[in-house]
């Protein structure tokens, strides 16, 4: 059944080469944990991506109930977590996944650093990886405000005041992040927009670049 559908489409559009290009590539022995168990350190990049996918999915589902509004934000989070079935799990996935992404990304960075994989010709991929790192930090910072509880409020206040201590342009950065003079209604909608539209868009573009480059250059050789 599935095979017939696939063949019908393939006859017309010749899609097999498309996915074969993506799927058919050799995994060298030195990155295969079946050969050397210590090669599990090469898994952290993939794990980061896996958790990122979970973050995107769970985030999409959370926005079915969440509102970025100072009156209702906390109430809507409380409702989706405690009244909606599996709300605790879906919010938990997004909450703990956020920390786990940072952990996995950090381990991936360490692996790349200690295997020297950032060296020529892969410097650009290191730079893109660093951009991804900062985008992830931005996602964590903006997402932290959204439940609009005390912790969120003061974390954002502190974070923006740190940003405001940048010489010369600090106060402009603070105004841009606040969207006004206080951490308030405009800050919340701003952070929501950055968290769900701007940064994920940038993240997906950077991830695409990251993966294209690694596919083009291949995994770096053994130590």
């Amino acid at each position: 059944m599935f095979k017939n559908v696939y063949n019908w489409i393939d006859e017309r559009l010749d899609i097999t080469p498309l996915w074969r290009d993506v799927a058919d590539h050799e995994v060298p022995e030195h990155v295969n944990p079946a050969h050397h168990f210590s090669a599990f350190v090469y898994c952290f990049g993939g794990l980061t991506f896996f958790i990122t996918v979970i973050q995107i999915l769970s985030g999409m589902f959370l926005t079915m109930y969440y509102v970025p509004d100072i009156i209702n934000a906390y109430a809507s989070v409380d409702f989706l977590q405690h009244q909606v079935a599996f709300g605790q799990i879906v919010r938990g996935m997004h909450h703990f996944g956020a920390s786990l992404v940072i952990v996995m990304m950090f381990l991936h960075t360490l692996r790349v650093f200690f295997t020297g994989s950032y060296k020529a010709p892969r410097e650009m991929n290191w730079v893109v990886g660093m951009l991804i790192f900062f985008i992830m930090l931005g996602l964590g910072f903006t997402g932290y405000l959204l439940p609009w509880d005390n912790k969120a409020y003061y974390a954002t206040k502190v974070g923006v005041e740190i940003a405001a201590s940048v010489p010369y342009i600090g106060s402009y950065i603070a105004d841009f992040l606040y969207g006004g003079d206080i951490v308030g209604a405009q800050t919340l909608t701003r952070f929501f927009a950055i968290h769900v539209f701007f940064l994920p868009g940038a993240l997906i573009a950077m991830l695409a670049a990251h993966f294209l480059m690694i596919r083009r250059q291949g995994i770096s050789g053994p130590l």
Partner: protein
Amino acid sequence: MSNHEQHETAHRPVQRKEMSRRQFLSYTLGGTTAFMMGGAVLPMVRFAVDPLLVKKEGGDFVKVVEESKITAEPQEFKFKIHQVDGWYESDPELVAWISKGEDNKIFALSPVCKHLGCTIFWNTKGHNEYDCPCHDARYSKDGKNLAVANSPLDEYEVEVKDGFVYLGPIVPNTRS
């Protein structure tokens, strides 16, 4: 490469009933992947479809007006219900047109036109009918659809207790 192919064709396939290694691996991998995907996606799907599975609560009856004030001529009465909409609770005001029928029974009509949902009023054109301002739908005193709309006006469930009229959930028209 050509050497390899020759070898393949020269080699006679062994007929075995067991599952091949490739098949076993693809089943195991597929099963594990499906399990992990399911574990992640099922809670989210259940989360999304929760509104479909929540039990609908029967509305409470609300005290609206003294029984003695109800006449044969429909009158408009406003009353407030308590509404819980997710995290937002409010007390919206509803409208009912209450009158006594020829059977001397008190009944209450919803003012929502069954054509396209505008709000109807009693006797705005002097024909002793309910008129809808949007597309000239008309209903009899019992809510029977006379023009434009293709079903009669809904009713509120009515309860008369201790000289007061109480209104409950909306039900399809029972009088026409």
